[in-house]
């Protein structure tokens, strides 16, 4: 009986394996946000009429400053909890630690490392609490984490405006307001941790980019040849081909820039900061390959199945949020050591929104986010940030318009991506209902 049916099963089998096909329409639809953004940035660049060296320099700076925060969003997405707007709370943990080390006047790298260390217990605690609440609001994690961020801002203000100087003694005229209660609005980090990480070592950007591109090119070519032979792994072929093309472009671009004698060639980048970002990327890649990472993925894809197969779903979800919160705290420290002033009641406010907007621009969605999307998104988003005031000025004679425009785009991108995602989910649910033959 079995033999008789074998051929039939064979037939099915070949149809099951997806051939690596390129469906341009589908790709365009799936990456509509990124495509729109590339177009915006392209016209923005033309309108802004800024020197390439300036734009590139700012861009490298901003990527170094912001990528860590954006990357801290990936793990909760993996665990199916959506985009963690609650990284604001992690940022607060970082700022609490930063205020402490500034108060103790521990400066430079020492201060930075100590702040990073102190922020961990705070971030772990906050992350645990966040996770607890998000476990009570399954399916509504994103809006909950957003509101939770607002709520935490209230508590944070209460801490630094009222508890400092009343319950928590702090005698520091530099930090505390003249009345003796509350921390000042802005704290200058110039004599603190400014450039603690950035300042360690800076070198020229394009030689480094060329070197990095060579390494990735070799790696992806190797992958291309390995994957090509395997009937199943072949699905990944387009991805590795794209990597190859990108890294080759990177090499060519770097070489051209380096030979052009333009100012662009002289752009420098903070090695230690970029290194820490690369370390985080490596960490993300590593975690996916561990048992914990597999649990994240399982829970993320189907909580019910995960639970039935014996995974402690709630615990896994809390861990993912805790990791994200700690990373956000560090990300905020990296951000602030570059900015140089801590706006006590404002620096963290937009962190969640900007990070989420960045990763969405890179093509991520509520249930899928990769390192590449995070970096691409950060690049595009900040490119727009740099150029839009200039573009606004040249187009309407008003730089303010450009500034409002970029805020609009940040909100709009989040609204659009989340809306599109919800719409897609709705359509898929309908299709599933109908196609269940």
């Amino acid at each position, binding site marked *: 009986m079995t033999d008789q049916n074998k051929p039939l099963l064979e037939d099915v089998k070949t149809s099951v394996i997806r051939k690596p096909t390129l469906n341009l329409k589908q790709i365009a639809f799936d990456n509509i946000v990124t495509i729109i953004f590339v177009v915006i940035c392209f016209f923005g660049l033309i309108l802004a009429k800024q020197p390439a060296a300036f734009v590139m320099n700012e861009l490298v700076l901003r990527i170094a400053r912001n990528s860590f925060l954006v990357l801290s969003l990936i793990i909760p997405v993996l665990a199916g909890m959506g985009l963690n707007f609650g990284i604001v709370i992690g940022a607060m943990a970082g700022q609490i630690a930063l205020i402490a080390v500034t108060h103790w006047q521990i400066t430079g790298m020492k201060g930075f490392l100590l702040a990073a260390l102190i922020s961990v217990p705070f971030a772990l605690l906050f992350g645990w609490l966040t996770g607890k609440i998000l476990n009570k609001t399954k*399916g509504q994690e994103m*809006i909950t984490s*957003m509101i939770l961020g607002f709520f935490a801002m209230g508590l944070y203000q209460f801490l630094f405006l009222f508890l400092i100087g009343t319950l928590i003694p702090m005698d520091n005229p530099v930090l505390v307001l003249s009345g003796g209660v509350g921390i000042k609005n802005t704290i200058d980090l110039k004599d603190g941790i400014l450039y603690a990480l950035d300042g360690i070592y800076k070198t020229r950007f394009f030689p480094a980019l060329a070197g990095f591109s060579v390494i990735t090119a070799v790696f992806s070519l190797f992958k291309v040849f390995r994957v090509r032979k395997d009937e199943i792994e072949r699905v990944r072929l387009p991805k590795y081909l794209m990597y190859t093309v990108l890294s080759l472009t990177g090499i060519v671009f770097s070489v051209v820039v380096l030979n052009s004698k333009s100012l662009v060639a002289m752009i420098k980048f903070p090695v230690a900061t970029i290194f820490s970002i690369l370390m985080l990327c490596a960490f993300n890649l590593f975690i996916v390959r561990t048992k914990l990472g597999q649990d994240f993925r399982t829970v993320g894809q189907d909580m019910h199945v995960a639970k039935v197969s014996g995974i402690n779903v709630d615990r896994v979800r809390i861990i993912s949020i805790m990791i994200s919160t700690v990373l956000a705290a560090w990300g905020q420290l990296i951000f602030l050591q570059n900015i140089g002033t801590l706006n006590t009641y404002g620096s963290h406010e937009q962190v969640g929104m900007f990070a989420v907007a960045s990763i969405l621009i890179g093509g991520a969605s509520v249930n899928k986010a990769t390192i590449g999307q995070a970096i691409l998104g950060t690049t595009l988003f900040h490119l727009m940030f740099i150029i839009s005031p200039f573009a606004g000025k040249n187009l309407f004679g008003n730089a303010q318009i450009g500034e*409002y425009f970029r805020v609009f785009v940040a909100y709009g991108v989040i*609204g659009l991506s989340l809306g599109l995602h*919800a*719409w897609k989910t709705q359509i898929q649910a309908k299709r599933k209902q109908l196609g269940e033959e």
Partner: protein
Amino acid sequence: MKERFQRFIHQFGLPRLIILSFFLALLVSAYFLKLPLNSLVSDTLVRTGMNGVLVLAMVPGIHSGIGLNFGLPLGIVCGLLGGLVSIEMNLIGINGFIIAILVSLPIAAVIGYLYGLMLNRVKGSEMLVATYVGFSAVSLMNIAWLLLPFHSPEIKWPIGDGLRTTITLTGKYDKLLNNFLDFKIFGVMVPTGLLLFFLAMCLLMFLFLRTRTGVMMSAAGINPKFAAATGIQVDRARIIGTMLSTILGAVGIIVYSQSYGFFQLYQAPMMMGFAAVAAILIGGASSHKATLMHVIIGTFLFQGLLTVSLPVANKIVTEGNLSEIARIIVQNGIILYSLTKVSNGGD
């Protein structure tokens, strides 16, 4: 006895109980701090009236099934547009007020319709998407405020481009409703017109919910499957609810502004949706159930709390703005609380 007490707490709702006791505690401390209670009560009444319509805007949204309308700023900017037109036309008094509303109505209706179409495509994520749609609408309007061709000197900055951040209503219809038939009793100033207008809007809503359309809309909101089986077009009902909510948002901001004395442009409408959501939740509503009583109680409690906490806090700690912090914590705390209730499947 204990059991009865517990049942009472359960029915009344723990958060409301906390907020009510907090409010009473504030009133008592205000009394002992020798703050002028009568003016505090007057202020509370005024603020209840001026925020009431915005909170009322939540009702059709909840009834039609879109849940808490975090996208209220959409309606608010429509109202602001209407208000600006009335000033541009240099209308004074009741005419200005009515024209402001009449102009904003069709705009809000159209925007509400489109917004409703969109919400139908994102069922299940309405709150999150609506929040960001509201935010983007406000920031898009920021650009519009810079570019719109208004000419009235009261609207435009005297030098430079764009519209003023706050546009005064003095000499137009500032406190038009507040001063209508107002009277003083025990030292408390009662803004009769304002409260009457608010109650009239509530009455209209009450009547609407009893029309055939209103009944069908509520049925669609409470149980979409039931509604579909009864032949009700659920999506259409949701659009009606969204339109009404947006329109009420527009009317609400005009009422708010005439009492406040200014139209506030730019960032001001951004967080107003949250305040309205918090108020109705404090009144005891949830994302799928809301009555007019919830609106009235919630607005009164929330606004009373904010009004009284400001002077009390300032008496205790002179530094900073404790009242603002209390607002942030209470407002977001109650929304958070209701979110945890929704997902636990509790009624």
